[in-house]
């Protein structure tokens, strides 16, 4: 699109930005209310609800569980996706398409279906409510994201580099470790971060399979909201929003958020 935006386009765009930002901004504002109920902080700003949050053992415990779960499942997902991406991008083998479809299929199954499927399965094999069970289910959920990011990264690598290393006598493993892996690292890291935040935020599937000792932060928030909505949930949400902002900036620096979400970078001559 070469033409520029006219008045009506910019007016529409302004309304769009308000629509997108309003609920997010409102949550953040209300978290700073000095009152005991949800309200805009018109009579001064207070950190009392963040203090209450820090003193709430349940939310703090859930925050830790979510951090651990996100880190563990993102790491496992990256470890199995790196070889899988190598196989899909670099080799042609029987069943390649079927394998790719299998790896991407968690995207097609609604989270609610995954939730009930894992609940039944884990309770049958005696793993319900365990952190191991949660990790496995989250790995499956995030493998598509990690795999796609790493495949993008591998695909944009010049394979002549590999051939050069090989022709200089480097073994396949050494070529991978010294050439391919370092060059794919930004992609792997981006995939890891995207997987981490996806796992950290997941609620629909997790609410079915998390146990009393393994309640993740979004699940705890969800269960709390079902009972009552007070400034404490606004404070928790603000923490989640700030985490998302941090992840967004990391991803944008590392990989380019547009490239990550829309595929290749928009062909913008100004960039």
């Amino acid at each position, binding site marked *: 699109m070469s033409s520029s935006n006219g008045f009506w386009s910019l007016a529409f765009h302004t309304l769009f930005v308000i629509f997108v930002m309003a609920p997010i901004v409102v949550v953040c504002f209300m978290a700073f209310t000095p009152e005991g109920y949800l309200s805009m902080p018109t009579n001064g700003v207070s950190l009392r609800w963040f203090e209450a949050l820090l003193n709430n053992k349940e939310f703090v415990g859930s925050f830790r569980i979510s951090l651990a779960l996100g880190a563990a499942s993102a790491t496992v997902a990256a470890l199995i996706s790196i070889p899988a991406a190598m196989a899909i991008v670099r080799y042609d083998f029987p069943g390649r398409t079927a394998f790719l479809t299998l790896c991407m299929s968690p995207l097609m199954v609604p989270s609610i*279906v995954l939730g*009930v*499927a894992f609940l039944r399965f884990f309770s049958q094999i005696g793993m319900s409510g365990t952190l191991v069970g949660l990790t496995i289910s989250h790995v499956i959920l995030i493998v598509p994201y990690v795999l796609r990011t790493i495949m993008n990264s591998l695909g944009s690598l010049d394979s002549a580099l590999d051939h050069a290393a090989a022709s200089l006598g480097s073994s396949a493993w050494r070529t991978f470790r010294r050439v391919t892996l370092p060059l794919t690292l930004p992609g792997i890291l981006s995939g890891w971060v995207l997987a981490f935040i996806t796992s950290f935020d997941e609620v629909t599937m997790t609410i079915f399979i998390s146990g009393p000792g393994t309640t993740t932060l979004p699940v705890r928030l969800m269960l709390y909201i079902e009972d009552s909505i007070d400034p404490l949930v606004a404070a928790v*949400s603000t923490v*989640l929003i700030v985490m998302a902002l941090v992840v*967004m900036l990391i991803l944008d620096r590392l990989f380019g958020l547009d490239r990550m979400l829309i595929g290749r970078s928009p062909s913008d001559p100004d960039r």
Partner: protein
Amino acid sequence: MKALLRRLDPVPVLLSLPAGLLLGLFLLIPLAATAILSLQAFSLYTGIQSVFNLDNYVEIFSDGYFGEIFLRTARTAALTTVLTILIGAPEAVILMRMKAPWRGIFLLVALGPLLISVVSRTLGWALLFGSTGIINDVLIGLGLIAAPLQFMYTETGVVIALAHVLLPFMIISVMTTLQRLNPLVESASYSLGASGFTTFRRVILPQVLPGIFAGSIIVFAMAASAFATPQIIGGRRLKVVATLVYDEYLFSLNWPLGAALALLLFVIVIIVAVGFNQLAERRFRRLYG
């Protein structure tokens, strides 16, 4: 067979083994087990019975209570899809036209919410919607309405919040399509004397349509199976299939019926998505073929 094995390179097989095993074991088996579970009977006293029949499905199809919830789910998903098209498609065009650094900044604004927990985003709408919420304050302040509008526990509220949650997928889909286009075509239309409206209708819209179709499939599928947003905005009073499944599993403890409901939802979503996809392909083949 031996020749095949000799020709078969073991490296890619070994490389794909960990992911293949994990997904095969922990995705395909649980899904199959759920399908079997949906055929079993349940009684409050003895739990899940080992009889296998289609009774759960018969109950879902014959009881109007379930029919109403499936209809509501389809209606909210369809309306959400329409709303994301109306907001997302024009915005994608506007974003594509932007120059650096504005495009980068507003891409973050448009797509960034994807990284924020659905619960947080929906909570924001719950705060805006309340009868003393900001939306009602503004509308009454502007003199547009006399009494507060009810958004919580209504389909309108669920549709607005769901559209907000799923909007990034429509924008991504339309922008992906726009990127493949030649920007000069639009200029050509203007230079040949077409008006802005004609250019939009005859040049931009046909080019954007495949992206809108693809985005609609994604948004509809996700809206139809959404859980967190309808649970928070709709609550117990306004059930959709996903929140009904949750209730069957955690409160009624009727897992077989819950499994049947979840699988039925899954199958319907797949049928709609595949059907829509084929419709789109046929249409675009005619357009461009």
